[in-house]
């Protein structure tokens, strides 16, 4: 009978095996990323297409559930509540949009130019929740067959900037939110340029000179997106010893209840 190996050698052998498996797995993952990069996102686009369809299927099933017997009364109250919240959010957004348009109109009158009307766009349903991805991305139900193109601008129904298209599949597309976590974007508020840092969920933070004439409710526009409005200033913080004012920006749209977006070609 062969002598039993000491436990510490069995443990060392197991550790080596685990470490070897770990390194092997890391190499496989790196290889997959490399293949996806070389193939310009073929694997990624297939998965996004599947994910978008899965979200759409689940959404359609969930929407039919409230009509089942036993859920009707409670469901109708929930639906009414959601509709009222949606209406309230839309009203607030329309007020903000009115302010943005008024400010834009004054600027254009001063420059004696005529604003171009939006032409050519696609309405698309939002398939995934904004809280699903920590990267600030979401999927919409319009793709290449509907005329959606890469880098197209995505707006809320009231015309506020939401993001841009970063990936297009046949029937779905992926949108990256303007204020995605970690994203930086140049903005203008009342002719004061500043750099905004995305915080996700339609929120952003920026800093402006302390003496800048900014206040709550000021409209934030983005020069790189044809100076479209992207949000409102909801809070300003200035420390007595600081030379800057910290601004907290928020998209006036309730992203949790947003069901449709507008893709501008």
């Amino acid at each position, binding site marked *: 009978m062969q002598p039993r190996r000491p436990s510490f050698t069995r443990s060392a052998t197991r550790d080596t095996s685990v470490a070897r498996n770990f390194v092997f*797995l890391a190499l496989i993952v790196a290889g997959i990323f490399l293949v*996806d990069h070389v193939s310009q996102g073929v694997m990624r686009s297939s998965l996004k297409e599947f994910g978008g369809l899965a979200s759409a299927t689940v959404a359609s099933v969930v929407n039919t559930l409230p009509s089942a017997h036993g859920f009707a009364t409670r469901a109708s109250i929930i639906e009414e509540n959601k509709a009222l919240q949606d209406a309230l959010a839309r009203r607030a957004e329309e007020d903000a949009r009115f302010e943005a348009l008024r400010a834009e109109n004054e600027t254009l009158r001063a420059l004696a130019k005529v604003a171009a009307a939006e032409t050519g766009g696609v309405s698309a349903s939002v398939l995934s929740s904004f809280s*699903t991805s920590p990267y600030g*991305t979401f999927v919409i139900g319009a793709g290449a067959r509907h005329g959606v193109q890469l880098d197209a601008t995505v707006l809320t129904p009231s015309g506020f900037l939401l993001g841009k298209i970063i990936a297009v599949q046949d029937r779905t597309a992926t949108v990256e939110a303007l204020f995605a976590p970690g994203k930086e974007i140049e903005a203008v508020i009342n002719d004061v340029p500043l750099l905004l840092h995305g915080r996700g969920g339609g929120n952003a933070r920026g800093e402006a000179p302390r003496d800048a004439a900014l206040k709550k409710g000021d409209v934030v526009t983005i020069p790189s997106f044809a100076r479209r409005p992207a949000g409102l200033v909801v809070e300003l913080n200035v420390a007595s010893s600081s030379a800057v004012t910290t601004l907290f920006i928020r998209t006036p749209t309730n992203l949790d209840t947003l069901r449709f977006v507008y893709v501008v070609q």
Partner: protein
Amino acid sequence: MSFSKVRIVLALLCAVSVFLFPWWVTLITAFALCVRYRAWEIVPIALAFDFMWLPSLSLSWGGLPLATLTAFALLIIFEPLRRELLTGSALPR
């Protein structure tokens, strides 16, 4: 490598949550899997998560495949903990 019913259910829930549930559901199920098992399956699930939601792969903060890196971190962190403190060395790997 053992595949109990609990592990299969957690792994399926983790995989489905990539597409349908908030990201923290995926994180919690991956965490639960790593606490109890040497759950290598969270790596392909995390890879699918990054392929699905990551805007673009880059070395900047916003372009890192955080889900994949987190999956590897969970496997590394919980390997010694699982063996010695959380579940005991006598339980199957």
